Structures are given as structure tokens and as C-alpha cells.
């Protein structure tokens, strides 16, 4: 449930602050919550610590978007060379789960994980590919 004008949500009765809020290529709101960042993403992928500012570009200017192989509501965003050295030769993969917002009826997404990866997972279905000039 969205809590007024402040950038936070309530989950299980506790307030959770938004860390990143942006709109993807298809006009969908995507949010990263602070607790997911600290308690899930950084715990599993410590390499992401300090890379918060690069998340938005992966969502707004991805090179590849895929449908997740295991979650019907999951979309993965890949952006090549999104991170600074020494991690600049990989893709940044951002995994988003979409839901229909009960208030607005619009489709919105929550970032559940992200990490640098060598390539696009072969079992995922490509749904969008950046055109090369």
C-alpha cells in the first residue's frame, strides 16, 4: 500500500523507503525499496555496494529485456558496460517483478535483485533488443 505523498510503502505494517523510482521504456513505474537493497541485494551481491546510481540507466536504457524463465511476471533488464571499472566489461542485470497496482490499475514493478553478469541467460525469452546503429 502506498503511504501518501512520501516515497515509501507499507509492507507488513512497517514503512519501507523507496531508494530508486523510475519509469522504464514502456512507461511502467519501477521501484527499488531500501530493505530489498540492504537485506537481499547487498547481502547476496556485495559487489553492488556503491553502484546505486547505475541502476536507473539499466531500466531506462537497457540493451536487452527478457521475460524471466521461471516467473511469469518477471522481466529482466540487461545493460552492457553499465558499471564503472573494474566491473565495466559485464552486463548489469536487474530483475523486476510486475504487479497490477490496486489503486491505479497500472502495471508497476519491484526490483527483487540485480548483479553483474557475463551474458544474457539463454533460457530467458528476449522481448526487446536495442537496435544497433
Amino acid at each position, binding site marked *: 500500500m502506498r503511504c501518501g505523498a512520501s516515497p515509501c510503502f507499507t509492507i507488513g505494517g512497517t514503512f519501507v523507503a523507496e531508494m530508486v523510482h523510475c519509469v522504464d521504456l514502456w512507461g511502467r513505474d519501477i521501484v527499488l525499496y531500501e530493505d530489498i537493497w540492504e537485506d537481499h541485494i547487498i547481502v*547476496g551481491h556485495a559487489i553492488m555496494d556503491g553502484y546505486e546510481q547505475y541502476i536507473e540507466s539499466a531500466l531506462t536504457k537497457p540493451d536487452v529485456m527478457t521475460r524471466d524463465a521461471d516467473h511469469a511476471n518477471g522481466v529482466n533488464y540487461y545493460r*552492457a558496460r553499465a558499471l564503472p571499472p573494474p566491473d565495466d566489461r*559485464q552486463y548489469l542485470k536487474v530483475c523486476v517483478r510486475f504487479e497490477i497496482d490496486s489503486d491505479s490499475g497500472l502495471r508497476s514493478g519491484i526490483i527483487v*535483485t540485480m548483479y553483474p*553478469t557475463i551474458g544474457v541467460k539463454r533460457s530467458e525469452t528476449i522481448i526487446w533488443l536495442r537496435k544497433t546503429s
Partner: protein
Amino acid sequence: MVTEDFLTFELKPLARDLIDPAAVVIRYDALTDTLFVHLFGTDRRATILEMDNHRSLRIDMQTHEVVGLQLECFMEILVPRNPQFLSVAELAGVDEATIAAARLRISPDRGKQSIVDSIFGEFKNDLLLTGT
């Protein structure tokens, strides 16, 4: 040799004798149903090399060493498929309800296969049992 789009590198073989069990960190993330295995502690920066739909290697891109594993859909798919992972789930602190639900998805044949594998593992150096 690993070649992915714009990146090519030689992956160093993982030497099992270099792994100190005391340094291994195993964590489970319930939000993404992912098991993280940090073979050399949690300090190593790791990039993910996805081997198949659910199994990935954690690679230190400075040294090209495998420093861990990442198993996705761990309780939903991998544990029912590999019942021997149940003990890993317990070690990783997966809650009892999730473990119980995974147990229910283990087919009798999978359960028996797991027992046979365990027996072969226990007696692998004895002459009584042969085969891989």
C-alpha cells in the same frame, strides 16, 4: 574458455583442496528463492556466470577464479529434484514450513535415488561398489 558477447576469458579450474570448509558461507534468500554459496567467505567480488536456468557460478573477474555458486529456484525446483540439498537448506536457515513444502514435492523415486547416491558416496572408495 568462456565466450559471451563481448567478453572472453579463461576460467581457472576450481581446486577443491583450496576450499576451507570453515570459510564457506551459505545463505538463502527467500525473496528470490536463491541459495548463495560463498566458497572463500563473503569478501570476494563476484560476477555471475549463468550455466543453465538455475545454476550459476560466481566468478572473481580479476583472477577468473570460481569463488562461489548461485542456485535459483532452490526450494521450488532444485531441492525436490535433488533431495540431498535438504541438508543444505537446513544449514542455510531455510524456515521449517518451506522445507516441509519442498519435502512434499520430492517424488518417491527421487527420494530413493538420493539414498542410493548417498550410499555410493559413503562407500565410493570400497571395492564392494563400483560405477559412477
